[in-house]
């Protein structure tokens, strides 16, 4: 009897020295990474409404915050959600389309200025659009005087501005992926009499669907999280996106609106996180190969 525990302890010690301590770190880091998310979830289910009351995790489970979220006419969460989907969705589709057109040209055609074009795109994308927010504001105010449907306060104008950044890093990601599609496929189709447009829309776009999905998702996330330009553009609560609207929720009275904000945050985050985790393998590959050579 007395001999049995000794070897077991020795194996535990050895296990701990090689692998066990790694699990300890894993658990600590998991807590660090996941805790704030658990906390929001718990706060969103707390009926007290206040920041102070939300400190007891999962003390009560109540959906009243979610109900309240959709009943406050001065903070139309439902409209924000739809606006976000519209702005993010159209921006994502536009970004994918414009980026794919450019990536096709860079990947399949050889022309003067090709290398210069690629270099310029890489350089320009270092300067985020929000640096020029003042100029964008004045430009769009001027445009709005002539075309009210594109000016400040419109989704169309905001989407146009976002599409100004459609090339750049996205084109790079797609360009790399397009290069992995063998050229012999294009050539075969061309021999069959297909035009360049038919090859692009009919063949290439289907073969590169994974990268289109990744770029679309990244563009969607970027557009929906964008705050600087959106906050300058969208001053009418009915027009705002989630980032601008939810910021207003918290910035006025942190402590009293807190649990309703948490409910809004959970609803806003869940779709993005589900899609992100489902596509994470592609996204991570895309990010790593897009930035590391």
């Amino acid at each position, binding site marked *: 009897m007395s001999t049995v525990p000794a070897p077991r302890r020795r194996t535990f010690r050895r296990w701990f020295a090689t692998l066990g301590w790694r699990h300890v770190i894993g658990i600590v880091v998991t807590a660090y990474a996941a805790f704030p998310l658990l906390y929001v979830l718990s706060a969103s289910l707390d009926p007290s409404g206040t920041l102070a009351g939300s400190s007891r995790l999962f003390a009560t489970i109540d959906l009243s915050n979610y109900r309240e979220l959709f009943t406050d006419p001065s903070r139309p969460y439902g409209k924000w959600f739809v606006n976000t989907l519209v702005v993010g969705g159209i921006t994502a589709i536009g970004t994918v389309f414009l980026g794919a057109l450019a990536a096709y040209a860079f990947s399949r055609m050889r022309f003067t200025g090709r290398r210069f074009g690629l270099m310029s795109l890489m350089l320009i994308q270092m300067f985020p659009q929000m640096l020029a927010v003042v100029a964008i504001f*004045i430009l769009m105010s001027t445009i709005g005087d002539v075309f009210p449907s594109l000016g400040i306060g419109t989704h169309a104008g905001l989407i146009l501005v976002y599409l100004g950044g459609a090339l750049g890093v996205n084109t790079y990601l797609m360009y790399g992926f397009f290069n992995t599609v063998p050229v012999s496929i294009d050539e075969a189709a061309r021999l069959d009499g297909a035009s360049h447009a038919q090859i692009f829309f009919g063949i290439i776009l289907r073969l590169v669907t994974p990268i289109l999905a990744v770029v679309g998702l990244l563009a969607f996330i970027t557009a929906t999280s964008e705050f600087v330009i959106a906050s300058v553009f969208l001053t009418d609560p009915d027009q705002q996106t989630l980032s601008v609207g939810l*910021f207003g929720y918290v910035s006025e009275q942190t402590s009293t609106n807190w649990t309703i904000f948490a409910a809004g945050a959970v609803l806003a985050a869940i779709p993005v996180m589900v899609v992100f985790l489902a596509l994470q393998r592609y996204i991570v590959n895309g990010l790593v190969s897009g930035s590391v*050579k």
Partner: protein
Amino acid sequence: MTLTDEPRTEGSGSPDQRPGRRGPWAWLSRPGETDGLVGILVKIVLLAVVDAFALYAVFLLAAQDEWLVLAIGVVLTVAVNVVYLRRDGLPAKYLAPGIVLLLVFQVFVMVYTGFIAFTNAGDGHLGSKDDAVAAISTKGQERVPDSPQYQLSVLERRGELAFLLTAPDGAVTVGSSDEPQEPTDDAETDGSGKAVGLDGYTSLSFEELLQRQDEILEVAVPVSDDPADGSLRTADGSSAYEYRSHLRYDAATDSVTDTTTGVVYRDEGDGAFVSADGDELVPGWQINVGFDNFRRAAETPQLRDSLVSVIAWTFVFATLSVVLCFGLGLFLATVFNVARMRGKKFYRVMLILPYAFPAFLSGLVWSGMLNAEFGFINQVLLGGADIEWLTDPWLARFSVLFVNLWLGFPYMFLVCTGALQSIPDEMSEAARMDGASPWKAFRAVKLPLLLVSVAPLLITTFAYNFNNFNVIYMLTRGGPRFEDTANDVGATDLLITMVYKVAFGTGTGRDYGLASALAIIIFVVIGVISALLFRRTKALEDIH
């Protein structure tokens, strides 16, 4: 990925067409043709839509005297047409849509930012001098005591209201808020000689007058092209009087006189009319101020001190963010980079969670958790402590870095994992055989290889954090504020949040000129970083 991939094909070179063996697309195109019939139709329709829109835009712009925008629009439209109607130049057809948007909303606005930095643009300094004179002349308008009474009929054309006026001497004029009154001969008159209708306009009925009375009270028809002459307005919808501002602009002396107080306001070249005691009339107008904004930033002591500390903090924040995120990410990547460890997948998903959570929400959530009075950290984790995580300058800086570490380490973890797995194990094993300790083997063999492959990423991460607006603004909004300055600047402000607050902040007036000047500083810094990055990638290309 490099920029030096070998050419794969000649895009526009037409390969030999073999007759007799034509595929499923053959019915769409004749042999030797590059576009299919459907393609040509789509192209023509799209181009027609673009041109129609451009033509419409040209008319509107011409009507509003926006000649610069008009010229840019015409050049772009012509360029687009040339690109798509030409037979050759296939690449341009694929690149044009994205590049047009890129040029307007990314390149042009950058250049325009540079332009604004040299002006006094901001609250009360947006339009031209003429706009300012017109705005001042319509301000505080009062009825001219001895004004003649005009008989009035309210007309409408395309939804806009116009006044048809009959002067006491029988002269008939027409005008609207946008167009000064002009004599007209062909008005219909009623028995009393009052003009009641005009070709091309519809007269408003009495009911319509009542319905739109608020709109009608707003109409002010300029008496003449000179805004100083005042305007014609109505109080009842049937008679109009001359109204004039007590501020009178005199073009000869280029000054504005307040007729009630007698004070004279002059244009001293500062973009506004200023009185002898320094009172400014609002609005002013936009003028070129040269390097004034930069000089103001460098010479006003309060502004300079806060700007210096903001720039220093921006560099510290960006550097520490990269170092901390990379350090933790690399550490975790090495910890979990063991083939026979179980649960790796679980940890991996858990560690990605902060990265998948929308970034703007993370800052807001943490701001609640770190709240000094009610936040979870103080209340529960620290048992009711009263630590001012977000309101003490140094603790706020610490908190911002801590939250940004939470946001940023998952990405570095993923990247380092990928990079570590691409380095063969034999290399460190060889080092170990030679008697190196595991740590030394890692430092001497794996780390340098890893750094080579992630160095460009570290630089882009630095550039990203340099402008990490969301985490700062959502967490602290740049606060706590510095106490010794009137500007809304605080201890955790980055340059980009400062730009935003100077331009669109609510506390002090909007100052677009100064904000753009600050943005120029960021341009310069990023330019230097990009130059380094390019050098770096060039060097790497030479290695491989």
